[in-house]
Structure formats: C-alpha cells, structure tokens
C-alpha cells in the first residue's frame, strides 16, 4: 500500500502564493510591544528569510502574519486584505513539539484535511503521499514521541504542506537539530517547496541558513526592517562566491550593531 500511495505524488498546487505585508505595524502582546514601525512586503511565491538576534521579535512577526497576534497599531495584510485571524491558507511550522503528541504521525498529517472535511480515503491517500515525500513512508502509525527530532520536523513539514496553504510561516524549524540533520532538512525543504507556489517566511538566527534558503533576507531589530537580495538563492555552491561572502559580512555586521 505504501508503494502504491507513494507513487501518486502530491498534486502541484495551482494557487499562487500570498502577498504578505506589514504597514507601520506595532507588534507584540497588548502592553508589551516588541517591534515598532515595521514595514515589510513579502512577494507572492518568494522565500523570505528573517534573521535577527534572539528576542528581537522574529516569532512575534511570524505570529502576527499567521493571524495569531493582532497588530497593536498599523496593519498586517494578506493579498491586500487585513489579516483578522488565523487561516488555513497561512500554515505555521514550529521549532519543535508542534505535533500533537496524542495523534499518530498520520493523524497529525491528516489533521488539516480532516478540518477541511475531506473523506477518510482521500485523507489517507494524501497523507501517505506527503509522508513518502518527506522520507517517512513507513512511520504513519507511530506516535511522534517515537521519532527523532529531525523526523518530527519532517512530519511538521508534511502537515503544513498537505493542506496546500498559500503561505508557509516557519519559526526556526531546524533550530533544534544537529548540523548534519539540519543540512538534510534544508535540502528537503528546497526540494519540497519546488512543487508549490506558496510564499515562505522562514525565521532563523543562522545567517548561513538564511543565505542558503532565501530569495531575500530581512534583517530584524534596531530600526526599520532592511531586506537584502541573495545573489543566487538555493545554490549550495554560492556560499563561496565573493558577493555572498560580502553580503554575509554585511548581515553579521548589522546584527552586531543592533
């Protein structure tokens, strides 16, 4: 059964990615603003990486875009319309422990489809397809606690993408993984995202990761948000290019200042 369903690869999502925007936005919890005067445009279908020191409000930014936190002032928009609450179109991937521990791997991946009211057979099929896609075709029945940290993030990725969201918001998804597993996951992410047109906002504190994955890098903390174009995105060989190295220096220098 696994081989059969694995063969029916996930359908490419025809829907274009969302354009996300923040206008003079004040972000944070009521009474405790973390970021002020944020202006940011995320272009449809791009992969924007967000770097900044820990505590500078990266997660707050992501949760605002997800619709979990309302802006304190200013506005947050998706395709021009104000974001008023969470929506299945904007999936969130957490650093760790984002899976429901009482649901099997399959149960977790099927969740967005169940919420959408898809039939059981269809759910099974799509979940199996995505589990195969992220390299875990035979772990569907396991509980999350029986998986390694890297495997759990693979499942989170499958769960986020199975519902074909138009934007994927990732909160340091590989931050808790060891260097080697992180490298594997970065390759997997690039591979998997190649099939969707979803906009991705990827928060990380790792400058090299930001440079490897992003079309653009947004610098957070200390003044207005700056965005920088990455010379040749998602090319592992680009890390040694002079323009990448100088961009890297530039980012590190501005992080030191903030």
């Amino acid at each position, binding site marked *: 059964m696994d081989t059969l369903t694995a063969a029916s690869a996930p359908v490419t999502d025809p829907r274009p990615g969302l354009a996300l925007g923040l206008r003079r936005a004040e972000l944070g919890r009521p009474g405790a603003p973390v970021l002020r005067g944020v202006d940011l445009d995320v272009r449809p279908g791009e992969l924007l990486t967000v770097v900044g020191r820990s505590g500078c409000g990266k997660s707050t930014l992501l*949760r605002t875009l*997800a*619709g*979990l936190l309302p802006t304190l002032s200013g506005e947050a928009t998706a395709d021009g319309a104000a974001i008023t609450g*969470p*929506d*299945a179109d*904007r*999936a*969130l991937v*957490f650093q760790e*422990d*984002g*899976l*429901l*521990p*009482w*649901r099997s791997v399959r149960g977790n991946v099927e*969740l*967005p489809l169940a*919420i*959408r009211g898809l039939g059981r057979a269809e759910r099974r099929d799509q979940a199996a397809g995505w589990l195969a896609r992220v390299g875990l075709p035979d772990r569907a029945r*396991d*509980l*999350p*606690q*029986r998986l390694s940290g890297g495997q759990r993030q693979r499942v989170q990725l499958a*769960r986020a993408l199975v*519902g074909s969201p138009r934007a994927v*918001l990732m909160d340091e998804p590989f931050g808790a993984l060891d260097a080697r597993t992180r490298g594997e996951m970065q390759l997997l992410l690039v591979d998997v995202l190649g099939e969707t047109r979803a906009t991705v906002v990827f928060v990380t504190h790792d400058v090299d990761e930001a440079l490897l994955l992003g079309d653009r890098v947004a610098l957070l903390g200390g003044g207005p948000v700056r965005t920088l174009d990455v010379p040749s995105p998602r090319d592992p060989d680009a890390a040694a290019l002079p323009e990448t190295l100088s961009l890297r220096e530039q980012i590190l220098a501005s992080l030191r200042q903030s």
Partner: protein
Amino acid sequence: MTVQTLDAAGGSRTNRPESGPAPAPGAAGRRLGWRRRLLRTGSVLAALGLWQLLTGLQVRLWLDFSQLPTTLQVADSLRQQVGTALYWEDLGDSLRRILLGFLLAAVLGTATGVLVARSRTAEDLLGPVLELLRPIPAIALVPVAILLFPGTEQGIVFITATAAYFPVVVSTRHAVRALSPVWEEAVLTLGGGRLRVLAQVVLPGALPGILGGLSVGMGVAWICVISAEMLSGQYGIGYRTWQDYTVVDYPGVLVGMVSIGLLGRITAGAVELVGRRLTRWLPPRTERSTAWTP
C-alpha cells in the same frame, strides 16, 4: 486497613509502577515479575496474620484488641454473608450510587474546569462561588441533601458527586492552563476553530491531569458514599456496616470494611487502567525517573 485502601485509591496515579525503558507499542508491558508479585502477596498475608495474632491473643497494650474479631472470624462471617442475597444487594446499591455520582462529577467537573480555565467571564462568574463551596466537606451537606431531594437515594448520589466534583474541577483547570500554546496555535493555523481546539487539543492534552483528579475523586467519593449511607442511607454497604455495629456483630462490621476496601481498590484500578490506555502517548518513563529502590 480500609483507610489504607482508600488512601491508595486517592493517590495511586502519582506512584504508578515503573514501565521500564520504552515498552514496544502494543506489548502488554508493566507486567510484574514473580519476585514483586510474591512481595505484594506476602505483604497482604502478613497484614492478615498480624491481625490474627493481635486479636487472637487479645493483646492489650494501651490499644485494646480484645473486643475485635480475628481474621478467621471475619473470614467465616464473610463466607456466610457472600451466600446471602442481601450482601450482594448492598454491594450493588453502593456501587450504583458511587458510579452514578462519580460519572456526574467527571462530566460536570471536566466541563467546569475547562470553562473556568478558558474563559475569563466564566472564571469571574463561577470562580468565587466554587472557591467558597470547595472547603465545605461533602458529608456536611447531608442535612441540605435531605431537605433538597425527594429521597435519600438522590441525596447520597448528590453528596458523592459533590465530593468527587471538586478534585476534578481543580485538576482540570490546572491541566488546561498548563497546556502548551503551541498545539492550539498549530490547530488554529491549520484552519481549525474553537470546537476543533477543544476536541483535538484541550481535552486530550489535559487528560493526564484530569485523570489525576478522577483518581482522587474516586477515593473521596468512596469516603462520602459510605459516610452518607451510615448517616442517612437505606441499604448499601455503609448502612449495613453501621447496622452490624449497632447490633454488636463485630465480624460483620469488619466484613463491611473489607468489602469497601476491595471495591475501592477495584474502582480505583479501573480508573487507572482506562487512564493508562488513553494516555499511551505520554513519553515513556525512564528507569532513572521512576525506579526508586531503597
């Protein structure tokens, strides 16, 4: 002895037997070795033997054992009573009362706990009243129950339910408040609404804590059902035990206590078993975190 058993019923979730390193899924697991079985059986036999010794020799060392029936007398009385329909009717009456009361407490207690933990309005409306009612021992409600209900039967169930209700409310409230917000955020950003969050996150996530409250609740429920039967009941094991005392049938009193102890053990075990089945997803305890061998 009875008190001991009821105590164990109340606190048994906190000292559950160690599971060893990660039992395979589906494996029976937690099966006791012959050595530990032997120890457990031996401990019960030793207690019975000690009682026989103290009462048989009519020991009077400040404590006076001379009036109390011996283990063998109690066993004899038990054998006689087990043959009568009355014994089983009393058992059934008490069991029905406790299960009904416990079920009411479980449902209402969980609902209240979730409500108070999730809604500020509910907390402000119900919280103060609950906090004022909570310190009142359920057994002190006997006069109220007699006035309030048309029959003693409903009154006893009411008292039992009230007793078990508060531990369930308190543990549910704490468990729901302690839930990691990440799970709720995950379901919300996957498109789920409030009901989804309740069914897929709040209830399953708080379940381990709720079960702690249910375990304690079951213990308290037994204390109260027996006390209520002694005070105002007709039929039931508590009523029978008190009756036996008033007619100076001391072995009968002890039979009542032994029966209560056994029933308490069985019901607490049932709660424990259901709880374990429902919380298989909890991370396995490691040898280090549970094994405590003096």
